[in-house]
């Protein structure tokens, strides 16, 4: 009898072990690695992206997680690495991620980092003469135009600034026919702001605005008196500033100090963020910025709250990171990604194929189109700073 009991106990223990092993096998975790700037003056973008990715992962996990190719359910976890907005470090980070079991990475923040690390990826898929890294990278923040064209392994979920400013200047011409002159300001040493200023300038001129001059400064500048003095001398009706929140606020404060009061202010997409309002809400009052995010839909409002709980704030960049997590979930499921150590390269190929095949994704403001060159066509609207918050001014797509 005793032997029977021992045998039964052993059988039970074995069964339990098997069950718990099985349960453990079911409780898998898929790590998605993000990377970007979490140091320096653009640190806040990395902080927000990380918070957005974590908030999205939490939402996905609450809804049951993601179904892998073998039918197992998995939770998503997020790791975020700092590249300090430095191209060399960005390359090291992507090599580090690619040396792990990861099948995709989300980032980077800075366009100059994206330029370099997209350059080390294989340019054309299947080109055996190209020894570039075969690893899919999905950019959330790096906004300089045309970057995904560098490699077929590069994808972006950033808005087209060309379309946004084209629409904005045409709208300004219609809505403010009395305004004729414009003065530009550009953060010259930052790839994104510099490239976008080119877009702003071209669109302004094509819509008949007379450009009176351009003030230039650098990302780390703190004194803008010379540039603003020159601006004041030309007495423009519109001032268009292509700069990130830190120097945008510096220039706006200096304009306030020198009594420069244009009839209209236009800002860079990246400045439609909480940082601008925290830094210079009074001086930024009325500034118009096209953006691909505003909490105007129930999904967008809920997402903004979730990101806030994770210690970040939702803007057009972190919204892109949030959306990317849901896109990745869909691609993992549709492409039957296994997420196992022995299927890493196959999973990467599947992920790339899945992302390249997307024609439309779900965004926080509505459907997001996907182009053949792996870019996004995002819905956008114009916001303006009013009473210390961003409020929707116009919805061109509606």
């Amino acid at each position, binding site marked *: 009898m005793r032997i029977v009991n021992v045998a039964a106990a052993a059988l039970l223990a074995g069964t339990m072990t098997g069950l718990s092993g099985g349960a453990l096998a079911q409780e898998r975790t898929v790590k998605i690695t993000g990377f970007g700037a*979490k*140091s320096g003056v653009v640190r806040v973008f990395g902080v927000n992206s990380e918070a957005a990715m974590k908030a999205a992962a939490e939402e996905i996990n609450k809804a049951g997680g993601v179904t892998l190719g073998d039918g197992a359910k998995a939770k998503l976890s997020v790791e975020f*690495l*700092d590249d*300090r907005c430095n*191209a*060399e*470090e960005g*390359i*090291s*980070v992507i*090599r*580090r991620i*690619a*040396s792990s079991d990861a099948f995709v990475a989300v980032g980077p923040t800075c366009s*100059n980092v994206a*330029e*370099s690390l997209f*350059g*080390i990826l*294989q*340019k054309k898929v299947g080109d055996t*003469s*190209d*020894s*570039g*890294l075969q690893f899919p990278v999905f950019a959330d923040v790096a906004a*300089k135009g045309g970057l995904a064209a*560098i490699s077929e392994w590069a994808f972006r979920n950033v808005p087209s600034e060309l379309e946004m400013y084209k629409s904005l200047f045409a709208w300004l011409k219609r809505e403010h026919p009395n305004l004729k002159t414009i003065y530009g300001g550009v953060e*010259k*040493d930052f*790839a994104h702001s*510099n*490239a976008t200023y080119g877009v702003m300038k071209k669109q302004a001129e094509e819509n008949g605005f007379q450009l009176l001059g351009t003030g230039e400064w650098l990302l780390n500048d703190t004194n803008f008196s010379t540039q603003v003095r020159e601006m004041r001398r030309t007495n423009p009706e519109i001032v268009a500033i292509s700069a990130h929140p830190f120097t945008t606020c510096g220039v706006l404060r200096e304009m306030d100090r020198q009594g420069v009061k244009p009839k209209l202010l236009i800002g860079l997409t990246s400045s439609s963020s909480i940082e601008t309002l925290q830094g210079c809400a009074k001086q930024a009052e009325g500034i118009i910025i096209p953006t691909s995010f505003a909490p105007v839909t129930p999904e967008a409002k809920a997402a903004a709250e979730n990101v806030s709980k994770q210690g970040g704030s939702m803007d057009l960049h972190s919204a892109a990171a949030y959306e990317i997590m849901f896109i990745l979930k869909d691609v993992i499921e549709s492409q039957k990604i296994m997420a196992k150590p022995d299927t890493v390269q196959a999973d990467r190929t599947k992920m790339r194929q899945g992302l390249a095949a997307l024609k439309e994704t779900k965004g926080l403001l509505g459907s997001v189109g996907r182009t053949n060159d792996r870019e996004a066509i995002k819905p956008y609207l114009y916001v303006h700073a009013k009473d210390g918050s961003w409020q929707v001014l116009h919805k061109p797509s509606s």
Partner: protein
Amino acid sequence: MDFYLGLAQVIGVHTLLGLSAYCVLLTGQVSLAQAAFFAVGAYVAAILTVIFKWHLFAALGVSAVVSGLTACAVGFPALRVKGLMLVVATLAFGEAVRLFFFNFTYQIQAGELKIGPHGAEGFRQIRYFPEHGWSTFDVLMFIWLMVAIVMACLWWLDQSRAGAVMRAVGEDEVAAHSSGINVTAVKVLAMTIGGVIAGIGGGIFAHYTTHIEHVQFGVILATFAIAYPILGGLSNVFGTLLAVIFIQGFLIEGLRFLGDWRNLLFGALIVLAMNLRPRGFLDAGGVASLKRMLFAGKEGSGA
């Protein structure tokens, strides 16, 4: 594995940058212009391989010569001043070069694309390595072959009379001058050799990062360039290598997992290292101890 190979590439290229400053420091001069020579090398080599489709070796040769000539040209006027004035003069030159590339545009049409440096937006698609099928390991081997050649040359130079002359100028310029050494010629020569090495390093840098722009060649890079040999010690070339491994391998990559704390620790650990080893990781005393340890057994067996 690819990550470690990539990290070893970074260490190799930064070693070249550090060695370019090492030459100048041997003569007692502190130059913040090494990042500028590095930038000249990067842009020249990239233009030659991307626009003119040159072979990389030829492009690196030309970039070394152009950077060397630039350093030589800068050396004559800059080395008339000493100490802090030289630091300011070379810093100003470095900024001038950076601003030159900030405004430098030279693009040609290649199919649907325009290629070449484009001012503040930089110079993209410098993809010689992947387009010619070089694996990460191949690139690593090439970089370290260059590092080995440069280190061997500098080691030989250090052991030669020319090296003794350079160190003599570095130790006491007046005494060196009194003993008949042409101090200006020695300093300019050191600056030129440093320029050549920085030119090679910059050329390789442009090709492994695939995109270069003026921001990369600013004061921070110039500071790193002189920090490597100072932190590593000037007793021989290996000190610079050790310092690069410490900064790039340990402080930057090794501590990345610490997130925000990494940046705080970065400065603190450098200060700590400088306090513990004020004459560098490999100072003369350290080298002598190493020699005693390594050769003690042989001496004993021979006795």
